[in-house]
């Protein structure tokens, strides 16, 4: 229950002092099921806009001191990147970590050949949108429309287009990582002598 005393200001419930509701229950369950480090990691993993350690602490239901400690570890590991805003350090997920997470998931589920053909498909899809709506980019598409409702048909296409553009970039990065790994250049286990000599005991 240690973190629950702070919980009420983290979200709004209609009545205030009511018996535990679904929101309080799931916070308690999450805190019970996870360590503070896991919660900080889970929150910062989906933080794409920089946020302060204090904000991340509130979302992760840990103290600001604990959040700062774990965020420093994640920065050192390359998972998180920082920016300065006045005197405050802001944290967000690093691009490297985004690519790595996506590449690992893709390479677990698909062969390089399947990824390559998926890339070709996504490129075709984007070409078709460009020609169907006579615009170059989803941004230009959005400007030509009056989309205020995410449930509308055009909003759906817009979301799909921007999603596809992102997943295309991630799939290409995943394929590049796979190719570099397969050749052994990354680990120095290739036959060339130019690789980094970071691990002389590497099994060949």
């Amino acid at each position, binding site marked *: 229950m240690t973190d629950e005393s702070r919980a009420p200001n983290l979200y709004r419930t209609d009545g205030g002092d009511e018996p535990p509701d679904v929101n309080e229950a799931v916070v308690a369950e999450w805190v019970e099921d996870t360590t503070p480090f896991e919660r900080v990691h*889970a929150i910062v993993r989906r933080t794409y806009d920089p946020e302060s350690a204090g904000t991340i602490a509130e979302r992760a239901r840990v103290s600001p001191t604990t959040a700062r400690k774990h965020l420093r570890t994640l920065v050192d590991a390359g998972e998180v990147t920082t920016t300065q805003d006045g005197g405050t350090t802001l944290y967000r997920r690093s691009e490297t970590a985004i690519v790595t*997470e996506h590449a690992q*998931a893709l390479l677990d589920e698909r062969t390089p050949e399947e990824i390559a053909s998926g890339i070709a498909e996504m490129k075709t899809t984007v070409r078709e949108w460009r020609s169907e709506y006579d615009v170059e980019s989803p941004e230009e598409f959005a400007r030509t429309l009056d*989309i205020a409702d995410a449930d509308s048909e055009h909003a759906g296409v817009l979301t799909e287009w921007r999603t596809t553009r992102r997943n*295309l970039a991630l799939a290409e990065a995943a394929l590049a990582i796979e190719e570099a790994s397969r050749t052994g250049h990354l680990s120095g286990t290739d036959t060339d002598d130019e690789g980094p000599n970071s691990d002389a005991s590497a099994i060949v």
Partner: protein
Amino acid sequence: MTERGNGGSRQPQADHREVFGPIDAGALREIRDLFVDAEPLVKSASLDDPLNPQTLSVELSDGVGSAASSRFDIRWSLSGNYAFHYTDQQNRDFRFDCHPKPDAPTRHFHPPPDASSRPVEPSCIAVRDVPLVTRAVRQRFRDAYDRETFDGINDAENPP
């Protein structure tokens, strides 16, 4: 190809660029794993396209009340917008959503039996992050499933 629904009374807004936002593939995988770990009724959980996922579908081996099976279709965007859409073998639907919507709260609920576009209710789910929203949606489903009725599915408090 016009906007459906609320006619021309809405004043034009300056910023329509991002109503839902690009889908977060990593978030969909995280939600998939959370559902599979927590919910024994899960029969399968898969992305519509592993390379370019737009939707996560979680198939359940039973549904609320008389429905023999059901499914959640789930979307989650980089900006934290989401849609958890329940549909079952009796063609009953509801949806817990969080995204900008004219004349509706950002966090809103499309009630059963048809989850129609309008009108919607404020959602009982106030938490925001992936692990918490996923748990909350599952909890609301479980509550309805155990009580065998959709009544109260959007109530934050469990009946005694």
